[in-house]
C-alpha cells in the first residue's frame, strides 16, 4: 500500500495524488487521442456518445451525488440546451457562440427553477422536478413555431470558423475536449468553498445551516451548475442525433441520467465515466448478444428497459456505491493484499429514519 508523504504545499493543491496517477492518466489521454486511427466510424460515434453522456452525467452528479438533491428533471435541461442550440444555429449564430450560450441558458433556467424548488425535500423534490420535466416536455411538443412540435426539428452540423466538424473523428475530438475540460473544471469547483458547502448540505442540512451555509443559495447554485452541464450535453447530443423530437427528452432520459450516477458511483467524478460507459455500452452489448438468443426473445423491444431496471435494482441493493465504489474496493483488496478484512467496507446496520417530523 502506498502512503503519500507530503513534503510540499503544492502536493495539496495538485489534482493528482502521486506520480502513478500522472502516468496512468497520461496513457489514457494519449490512447484517447489516437483512437480515431484504429477505430471505425461506428465505434467512434458510440465513443462520442459516451463522452457526451459523461458531460451530462457530471451535471447530474453535482446535483444528486454532491449536493444530495434528487432531481428527476434533468431531461428538461438537456432538452432546453438541445433546442436552444438548434434554434440558434438555425438563425445563423456561429457554433462557438451558440454552444456556450445554450448551456448558459439552461444554467439560467436551472437557477430560476432551483430557487423555488429547492425549498422542497426528498420525495417532494423528486416529484416536483418530475412535474417540471413533464411540463417542459409538453412545451417542446407544443411550441411549434420554435421547436417544430411533434414533427421534430433538424439540427445543422457543427462548424468552427469554416471548419466542418460533422465527420466522425473531428466531432469525437470536440466531445473529447469538452469531456476533459468539464470534469477538470468540476473537480476544481468542488474543491472550492462552494463545493465543500454542497457536500456539507448533502451530509447534513441542519449541520451545514448551523455552520453558516446559505442552504437555498447553494442548492440553487448546484441546480444551476447541473443544468449548465446538462444543457451542454443537450447541445452536443443534438448534433449526435441530428434530429430533435420531443419524446427524446421525456422522463425516461431523466431516469437514465439518475441510473448513470447510481450505477457509476454516487459522489465521485469518476462515477460519471463509469456510468456513461454503462449506459452507452449496455444497448451495444444487448444487440451483440441478440444473435445468441432464440428468435422469440431477441425480437422483444422490452429487453433493454427490463435489463436496465434489473441492473439498477441489483446495484441499489447490493452495491449502492456503484461501479466506482466496487473498483475502489478491488483496488483496496490488492493494495493491502493478504490483510483484507470483510469488515473493511461493511455497511452499518440501519433503521428506518422517519422524515415525517412532529
Amino acid at each position, binding site marked *: 500500500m502506498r502512503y503519500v508523504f507530503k513534503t510540499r504545499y503544492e502536493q495539496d493543491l495538485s489534482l493528482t495524488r502521486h506520480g502513478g496517477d500522472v502516468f496512468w492518466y497520461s496513457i489514457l489521454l494519449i490512447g484517447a487521442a489516437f483512437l480515431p486511427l484504429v477505430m471505425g466510424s461506428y465505434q467512434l460515434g458510440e465513443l462520442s456518445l459516451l463522452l457526451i453522456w459523461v458531460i451530462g452525467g457530471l451535471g447530474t452528479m453535482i446535483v444528486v451525488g454532491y449536493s444530495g438533491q434528487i432531481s428527476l428533471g434533468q431531461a428538461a435541461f438537456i432538452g432546453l440546451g438541445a433546442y436552444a442550440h438548434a434554434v440558434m444555429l438555425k438563425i445563423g449564430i456561429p457554433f462557438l457562440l451558440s454552444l456556450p450560450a445554450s448551456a448558459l441558458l439552461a444554467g439560467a433556467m436551472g437557477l430560476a427553477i432551483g430557487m423555488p424548488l429547492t425549498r422542497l425535500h426528498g420525495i*417532494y423534490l*423528486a416529484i416536483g422536478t418530475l*412535474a417540471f420535466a413533464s411540463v417542459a416536455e409538453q412545451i417542446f411538443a407544443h411550441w411549434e413555431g420554435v421547436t417544430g412540435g411533434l414533427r421534430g426539428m433538424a439540427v445543422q452540423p457543427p462548424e468552427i470558423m469554416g471548419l466542418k466538424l460533422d465527420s466522425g473523428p473531428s466531432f469525437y475530438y470536440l466531445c473529447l475536449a469538452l469531456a476533459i475540460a468539464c470534469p477538470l473544471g468540476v473537480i476544481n469547483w468542488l474543491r472550492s468553498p462552494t463545493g465543500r458547502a454542497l457536500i456539507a448540505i448533502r451530509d447534513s442540512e441542519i449541520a451545514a445551516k448551523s455552520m453558516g451555509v446559505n442552504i437555498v443559495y447553494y442548492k440553487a447554485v448546484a441546480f444551476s451548475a447541473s443544468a449548465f452541464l446538462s444543457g451542454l450535453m443537450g447541445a452536443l447530443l443534438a448534433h449526435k442525433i441530428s434530429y430533435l423530437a420531443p419524446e427524446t427528452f421525456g422522463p425516461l432520459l431523466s431516469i437514465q441520467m439518475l441510473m448513470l450516477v447510481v450505477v457509476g458511483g454516487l459522489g465521485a467524478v469518476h462515477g460519471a465515466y463509469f456510468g456513461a460507459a454503462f449506459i452507452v455500452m449496455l444497448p451495444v452489448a444487448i444487440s451483440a448478444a441478440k444473435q445468441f438468443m432464440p428468435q422469440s426473445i431477441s425480437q422483444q*423491444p*422490452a429487453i*433493454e428497459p427490463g435489463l436496465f431496471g434489473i441492473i439498477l435494482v441489483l446495484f*441499489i441493493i447490493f452495491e449502492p456505491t456503484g461501479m466506482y465504489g466496487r473498483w475502489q474496493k478491488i483496488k483496496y483488496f490488492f493494495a493491502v493484499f493478504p490483510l483484507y478484512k470483510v469488515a473493511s467496507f461493511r455497511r452499518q446496520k440501519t433503521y428506518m429514519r422517519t*422524515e415525517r417530523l412532529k
Partner: protein
Amino acid sequence: MIETIQFTINGIAVGCIYGLVALGFVLIYKAGEVVNFAQGDMMMLGAMLAVTLIVTYKLDYWLGLAIAIALMMALGALIDATVVRRIVGFPQFSTVMLTLGLGFILRSAASFVWGPDARTLDTPFSAGVWRFMGVTVSHTYASLIIGTFALCAVLFVVFKYTRIGNAMQAASENQLAAYYMGIPVKAYLSLVWAISAGVSTCAGVLLAPVALVDVNMGSIGLKAFAAAVVGGFGSIPGALVGGIVIGLVEMYAGIKLDTAWRDASPYLVLLAVLLLMPQGIFGSSIRKKV
C-alpha cells in the same frame, strides 16, 4: 349549464381513478415511508391480468377481478418482502431509484407477456346510461365513482374497526413502539403493499372500459402523484379529494384551453401546490425539530 354538470361528472369519474392510484401511494408511504414510483405499473399489470382472465379465459367478470386482485396482492407482498425490505433505513434516494427500477421491470415483463397491443374490456355495466334532466351519466362513469367510493368505504372500515387495521395504523405511526407491542411489523408492511397492489388493480380494472389497456397505461401514475400531493401526501381522504381535483382540472383545461394545456395542467397544479402550500389540502403541517 347542463354541459358543465356533464363535464364535472366525467371529470370526477376520471379523478376517482387518479384518487385510487394515489391511495395506493399514500398507503405505502404512510406505512413504510417508501414512495412507490412503480404504482402506475402495478395498476397496469393488474388491469392486464384481469383483462387476460376475463377476455382470453372467458371467466366471469367478478371472478376474474377477484383472481386478478388476489394475484396482485401476492405480488405486492412479494415485492415488499424480497426487495423493498432490504433498503429500509437507506436514504430516500435509494427508495426512489429502487421503485423506479421495479417499474421498469414490471413494464418490460408485461410487454414480454402481452406485447404492445392495446386491449379493451367489456364490463357487465357498460351498456346503458342514466338521464336526469338532460344530464347523461353512462353506467361506466357511474361505475368508476361508485366503485371508488365503495372501495374507500371498505378500506375505511378495515382501518378503523378491525384489529388488523389498528395494527397497521400503529405500525405506520411508530414502528418501534409497534414492535414493542408485539405487532409483527414486517408482516404488516407486506400486507400494506398487498392492499395497495389490490387497490391499484381495482383502479386499473375500473379504468379499463374508459381507457385502453396497454403496457404504457402506468403513466397515469404521474398524475396520481399530483393527486397525492394536492391532497397532502400521507392523507387517505386527501388522496381521493386530490384525485378529483386533478380530474376536474384536467377536464376543464381540455375544454377551455387547448390540448397542450390539458396534458400539462396536472403537473402545473402539482408544482403550484408544492410551492404555495406544500402540506396540501389535508396534510398536517410539519415543523422540523432540531
